């Protein structure tokens, strides 16, 4: 299988494709693998431009992050990909919701697999969000200038818990019903306005059809959109705040930098 000059490799075909007018009209940066083109591939893409075009080499080592943030994003993507088909088979009404869940288990093709994947990914996401938070803490990555991204992270932790919690009710089985009853009763303990919050959350004084509808809307619309909104800011702020190992965010560098500046100032004089 000697390669002759006339035969093109896959790479060359791909490069030709990238040169076409149509391709160029869709992807703004065009072909090529120069440093500039690679930077443009990030910078000129509406989604990727949230990230910086370059990162410190240290970021790539596994021990730097354990990829926990990336994996959390991964679970979120799996949850969106499985959640949308699940919505096609589900009515948020009593007792149809339970029947639909049963159908997913026994009637719908691969319905069982879809539901399993959604549920286990949801558990994984809650776990990974916590793990990510503790990893960031022990790294000290919340230090100046990255403080506010930590705050956004805490907001995302709460959104994740609410997403999981609202999804918990949707199968409308005994497990779901009583878990939500136990959880929502805690809201009643808030001084003065506890019962009002409880009523607002459930659309009634107990978990009922109104609560199911509310949790469904929260779970499928409001919370995922809110999560995406904050995730976008979360990613963008990594770049704006100087990235991982941002200069000055590490105590050792902080001290070294102060020493360097002092030494440089002395030399200049």
């Amino acid at each position: 299988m000697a390669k002759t000059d006339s035969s093109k490799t896959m790479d060359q075909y791909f490069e030709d494709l990238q040169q076409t007018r149509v391709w160029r009209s869709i992807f703004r940066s065009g072909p090529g693998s120069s440093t500039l083109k690679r930077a443009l591939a990030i910078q000129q893409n509406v989604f990727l431009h949230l990230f910086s075009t370059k990162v410190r080499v240290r970021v790539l080592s596994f021990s730097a992050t354990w990829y926990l943030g990336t994996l959390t994003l991964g679970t979120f993507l799996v949850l969106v990909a499985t959640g949308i088909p699940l919505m096609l088979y589900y009515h948020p009404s009593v007792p149809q919701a339970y029947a639909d869940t049963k159908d997913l288990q026994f009637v719908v093709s691969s319905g069982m697999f879809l539901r399993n994947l959604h549920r286990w990914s949801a558990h994984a996401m809650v776990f990974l969000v916590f793990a990510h938070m503790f990893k960031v803490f022990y790294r000290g990555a919340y230090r100046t200038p990255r403080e506010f991204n930590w705050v956004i992270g805490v907001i995302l932790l709460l959104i994740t818990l609410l997403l999981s919690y609202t999804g918990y009710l949707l199968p409308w089985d005994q497990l779901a019903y009583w878990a939500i009853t136990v959880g929502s009763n805690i809201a009643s303990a808030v001084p003065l306005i506890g019962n009002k919050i409880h009523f607002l959350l459930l659309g009634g004084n107990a978990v009922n059809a109104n609560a199911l509808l509310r949790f469904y809307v929260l779970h499928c619309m409001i919370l995922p959109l809110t999560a995406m909104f904050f995730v976008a800011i979360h990613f963008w702020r990594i770049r704006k705040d100087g990235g991982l190992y941002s200069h000055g965010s590490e105590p050792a560098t902080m001290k070294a930098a102060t020493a360097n500046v002092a030494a440089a100032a002395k030399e200049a004089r």
Partner: protein
Amino acid sequence: MADSKDFVAGVDSNAKKSPRRIVFITRRTSAQVKAETEDQIQTFPEVLFRAAVAIEVLAVVLVWISLMFNAPLEGLADPSHTPNPAKAPWYFLGLQEMLHYFPPVVAGVLVPGLVVMALIVIPYFKVNIEADGLFLKDREKRQRIFYVVAATLSIFLLVFKVYVALAPTLIMAGVMLVAAYSCPQSTSAFRRYLAARPLSYWVMTWFLFELVLLTAIGTFFRGPGWSWIWPWQGS
């Protein structure tokens, strides 16, 4: 700088006019030296490729789990039949365990509220920015404060019979005691490590320990009437 200027510097704020920008170069300005000279690598393709591989490995693991284990589904929701025990989702079971000892307004509102508040303000307090070992400065004073705080917390938990939270507190206090009497010049690597831990490390590790333990107990060790059971006893 006594020579007269042939321009007027001012701030114009007419939003309808395209502003003219002028660069002023003052005399004694030199090129700024970049302090950071760390090696960098391009996000595309180096980082994106690794991220994609990580997410694919995750997807494979999740698919495998989903093929092996089925999500639980019990009978139709029945408001007139309360299961015993009725448990919240696993990540709230630490809180539910607390509810067993304290009134709802404490365990359900005050504690989680304070935890969230504490998490949010972490980067804004100097105690979390400092990275020096807790007992390296003012050793004797800080040891005294540590004894008082550890004893008060332990007695509080003892009075309310919260043994499941008392155990990790005592273990952490024991480790901190070792840290309190270790110095950075110690021959033992472990003691050198402990001596260098700052206060924020101790508080967060204690919190993590409590969180994991209470959640595990709520999940695996609680049966009917929130009584203690062993995981192998079933329910």
